[in-house]
């Protein structure tokens, strides 16, 4: 019996703009995934604890506040500290290309910026989270 992929969609820090997060959540839901939405103003620790308890295959973080260079690396660190690097970590928002490159170097698997087609995001999540699922069962 195959279980749908499970993905956390999170908003972190002082950032109340959740329209993008809701659109992504809906797109992943329509692609047959179980999407757990954390709500606004979460700390990195809250997001990673949620991913662990929910046995999520991936975490998608939306940031439109400009704090991406702080919050993305904190989640990477938290995942390491919890021994949960198998969980796919991706994100999106208003992130300049040079920052996106730096974040990828620091362990964020993908950064999607405004204008990225939903189909591209969905197939990334299906592919990468699918690989995690094969690995851990």
């Amino acid at each position, binding site marked *: 019996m195959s279980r*749908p992929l499970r993905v956390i969609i999170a908003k972190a820090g002082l950032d109340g703009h959740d329209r993008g997060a809701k659109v992504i959540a*809906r797109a992943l839901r329509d692609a047959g995934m179980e999407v757990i939405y*954390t709500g606004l103003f*979460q700390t990195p*620790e809250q997001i990673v604890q*949620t991913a662990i*308890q929910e046995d999520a295959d991936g975490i998608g973080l939306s940031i439109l506040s400009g704090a991406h260079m702080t919050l993305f690396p904190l989640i990477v660190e938290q995942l390491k500290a919890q*021994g949960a690097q198998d969980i796919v970590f991706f994100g999106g928002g208003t992130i300049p290309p040079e920052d996106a490159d730096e974040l990828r170097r620091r362990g964020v698997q993908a950064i999607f910026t405004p204008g990225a087609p939903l189909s591209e995001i969905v197939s990334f999540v299906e592919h990468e989270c699918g690989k995690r699922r094969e690995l851990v069962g």
Partner: protein
Amino acid sequence: MNDTDAGAALLRQFEARSPRGLARAISYAESGRGAQLIRHLFARTGRSMTIGLTGPPGVGKSTLSSALVRKARSLGKTVGVVSVDPSSPFSHGALLGDRIRLTEHFTDSGVFIRSMASRGHLGGLAGATADAVLLMDAFGLDVILIETVGVGQSEIEIAELAHTTIVALQPGSGDSIQVLKAGIMEVADVFVVNKKDHPMANQLKREIRSMMEMLDFSGWVPELVMTQATSGEGIDELWAAIENHVAYLQKSGEMAEKRLEAFTHQVRQLALGHLQRKLERELRSKVAEGIDPYAAADRVLQSFGVTPEGGDEPIRPPHVRASVKGLM
């Protein structure tokens, strides 16, 4: 790693009381691979207090859950929350949003929250909810809160699974006839009127009271509590009502029956799950056009070795008992 090795590794993680172990164990159960694990852990179950929380969408179930978790934590108890939301019948995907109301408990190591998608299950729970409850019980959590999907009128499965069932209602959602209808109104051990600051809250309270005054109860008489979950008002009273019910179950000896109910529920779910998968296969292969539906059903049943029975006997789960006897 093969399945047996993976299962053994998982059991070690679980026994080391790692939250990841519990999380992975629930996933195993959800994908139909929980048998070995539960066989190992079953002897350790039966210690948790299980509370079911049901009611229509938007009544405040998750907010009530969060307030109850806060209360239980203040008493030093560890808590598990299983929260069910519906799956799409079309894409099979789901948006699980109950956590939004529970954020204050995310980093409390004494609280474990799991969202579950109903995955086509219709009784208000998910197919693996009972497994998740057993696993949380074996993990040593003191209190387990089970929050159903937002229900309509007839999803009463929760009453089989939980020791104490709370039915939450909100003011302004129908006239006095609604409280007389069959279904979820009959399974409450505790009624909660949430959003008590609403102008019509007292009217709903009176309607429930007058419904209950007409009825004769054997043993437990449901308590009625007014709450405002967002501010925490009435939560102490709600907790006291739950404890009264648990004390009643223990004193009257009905706790043993409740446990048997939950056990039977789970066995029924497991058996039905297998039968349904087989049935779907048979339906695909045996149902052809050109015969009437009764003949087609006979043909499907033959492959189960079942002879169709004349059926005027109502199908009822044998163990769901309400304490309502009828009118006075």
